[in-house]
């Protein structure tokens, strides 16, 4: 592993060690929330969400807002998909969806005080670009009618390069979107065929080129490793193509093959999935290549160029984690719309019903479509803070946490701290007088370290098979 060029790195670089991966790379949640969605309860209901919204208005400084819209449609199924979506080619379904979404906006927005500004908007799916440019315009207008947006709000959406023309990217920019995320996944034709998502590099690069030409603040690309028929050589070609384009951010997701949970994945034949050794080699090579190409490692599966706002947030300690992954902006209440969308308001999580029809009927009857959720208690809040600090800052200040939550940290977390001993002796973290700091060897295991503080997932937790491997 001799690097030809030495770059000035802003952030600590993770180091890759096979032995450590064998020992600490087991399954674990990605902690886009704590507690994780597994703890959500059906008893929570719309009343819980209403209470949380009312409470959130009452604070001396109510949180500003992050909006998420789940567009649940795709024109064809990608076989690796673990998201909630409906495969359709119907043209009118988008309009019906927007009609219903406006009902949802009309039920939620009046419950939120008008002086609370939207700082972030993200459209995910499904495929947001399943909607036509006109429909996306209508959606954006509706959102702006119901909420007031901060002048420098981050507006982003996921783009499937097969469903939008470069001209559409210009339209998105004029609607106010300032960041896009392009779903690339893999550029090898046989892999694309095996996962039923075929688009050549020229489609990606023309979307990317349009995005650069019109001046998006940030362009991100999503890649997935561990897909069927992937090889180290093939994925290296994909990585090279992506690096050549030089997107501001790259997300390198690890495919979790869970066909018993996600029906779409049953289309993938297990014997085509790369062996754990190949998968690791792909990850190691990609990691080394991205770092050599000047990308900084943010955490988990996220990389960014040194001048990207994620890197700055990671340095400043303002990096946060939300349902969409890493974010530059913490402390926002997230209001989410569409089937299966999860809101977080104060210490309350509320998830909409996953079913498109049930979501539609509920809203036609003027009822909030909240299906399940959770109110965090003090212990949840405490652990959520710890887990976010580990995931986002790679360190923990015991004294600060103890002072803030008025407890004796070392006594409260006696068991957890003992469990960290093994990780400390493996060199994943070093203790200091105030707490501990994750080392370059530990950076790939943020989830495993965070998991030690998860009250619901002991080492022998029975639901551990529901998560993808950490590395």
């Amino acid at each position, binding site marked *: 592993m001799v690097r030809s060029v030495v770059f000035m790195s802003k952030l600590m670089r993770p180091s890759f060690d096979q032995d450590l991966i064998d020992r600490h790379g087991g399954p674990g949640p990605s902690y886009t929330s704590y507690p994780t969605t597994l703890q959500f309860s059906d008893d929570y209901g719309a009343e819980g969400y209403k209470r949380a919204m009312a409470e959130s208005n*009452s*604070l001396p*400084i109510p949180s500003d807002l992050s909006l998420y819209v789940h567009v649940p449609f795709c024109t064809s199924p990608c076989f690796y998909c673990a998201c909630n979506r409906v495969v359709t080619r119907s043209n009118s379904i988008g309009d019906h969806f927007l009609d219903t979404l406006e009902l949802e906006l009309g039920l939620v927005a009046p419950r939120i005080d008008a*002086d609370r500004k939207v700082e972030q908007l993200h459209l995910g799916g499904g495929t947001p670009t399943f909607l036509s440019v006109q429909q996306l315009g209508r959606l954006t207008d509706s959102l702006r009618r119901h909420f007031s947006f901060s002048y420098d709000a981050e507006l982003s959406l996921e783009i499937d390069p097969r469903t939008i023309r470069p001209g559409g990217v210009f339209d998105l920019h004029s609607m106010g979107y300032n960041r896009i995320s392009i779903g690339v996944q893999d550029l090898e034709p046989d892999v694309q065929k095996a996962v039923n998502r075929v688009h050549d590099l020229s489609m990606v690069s023309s979307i990317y080129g349009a995005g650069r030409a019109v001046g998006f603040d940030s362009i991100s690309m999503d890649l997935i490793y561990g897909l069927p028929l992937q090889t180290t050589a093939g994925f290296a070609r994909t990585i090279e193509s992506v690096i050549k384009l030089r997107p501001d951010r790259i997300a390198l997701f690890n495919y979790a093959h869970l066909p018993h949970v996600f029906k779409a994945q049953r289309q993938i034949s297990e014997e085509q999935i790369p062996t754990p050794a190949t998968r690791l080699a792909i990850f190691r090579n990609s990691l080394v290549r991205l770092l050599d190409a000047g990308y900084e490692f943010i955490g988990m599966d996220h990389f960014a160029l040194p001048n990207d706002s994620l890197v700055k947030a990671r340095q400043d300690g303002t990096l946060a984690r939300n349902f969409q992954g890493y974010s530059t902006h913490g402390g926002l209440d997230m209001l989410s719309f569409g089937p299966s969308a999860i809101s977080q308001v104060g210490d309350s999580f509320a998830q909409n019903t996953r079913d498109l029809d049930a979501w539609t009927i509920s809203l036609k009857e003027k009822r909030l479509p909240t299906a399940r959720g959770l109110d965090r208690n003090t212990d949840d809040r405490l652990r959520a803070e710890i887990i976010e600090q580990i995931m986002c800052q790679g360190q923990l200040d015991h004294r600060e946490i103890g002072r803030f939550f008025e407890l004796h940290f070392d006594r409260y977390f006696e068991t957890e701290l003992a469990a960290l001993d093994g990780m400390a002796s493996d060199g994943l973290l070093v203790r200091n007088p105030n707490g501990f700091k994750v080392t370059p060897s530990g950076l790939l295991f943020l989830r495993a370290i965070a998991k030690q503080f998860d009250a619901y997932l002991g080492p022998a937790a029975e639901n551990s098979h529901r998560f993808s491997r950490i590395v």
Partner: protein
Amino acid sequence: MSKRKDLREAGDIETRCEDCSLYSLCFAQEISSDDRDDLNDVLKRQQPLAKSEHMFHGGQQLKTVTVVRSGSVKSYQISPDGDEIVSGFYLPGEVIGLDGLSAEKHPGFAVALEDSRTCDIPFHDFMAMLDKSPKLNQIMLRLLAEEMTETRELLLVVGRLDAKTRVALFLLSMSRRLARRKQDPDQFRLTMDRRDIANYLGLTIETVSRTVSALQRDKIITVRGKMVHILDRDGLREHAHQLPEGDDDTSQSTSRQAGR
């Protein structure tokens, strides 16, 4: 005496003031043990009030004088136009109902801001105790004086001062009252809705939040959820146009405690 005791609700294990968790911040610890025996005989420890539950309505006959045991209570009036006007907040250890003593009627409404517990002293028993105990008179006079100070300050605040001064005075007042009852004066929960703060101070909710944010940006306070942490008390006093630390109620209250 024993008959009265039987009347208390079953399940209330704190049968005497001395056993109450609030004892150290309640006026009950300041009166003589004979007076306290009388108080114990007449006191009714009430079932918890739920959040938003009313204690009494404006114009209602004054039946009891009430001590807040836990939680907090908001008092308000209704304007001729039917609008709510917030007139004050009561914290644990504070006494509600003194403003109704002369007319024997409650001038306004009282509602729990959170799940709260109270102790009620029947009005006539309270008056009888006042006849007997000079110490209790002294204490009540002090409590009335405290309330008058708050009210005067509010008049001044709403009449002439800018938003930052109003909010600073409000935070200092909360802090001072907590200190008086031996609570942490630098870190406390604002249990009231920001609407209540706005209403009380005669500001809009936006202005309250903007002002609190500005104080936070200036590193004078930090706010997380409803918790307020005063980082720079002198800075806050400066905003409130008060003299810096040294001559304030916090020290007075400690010396009062020490002198006892």
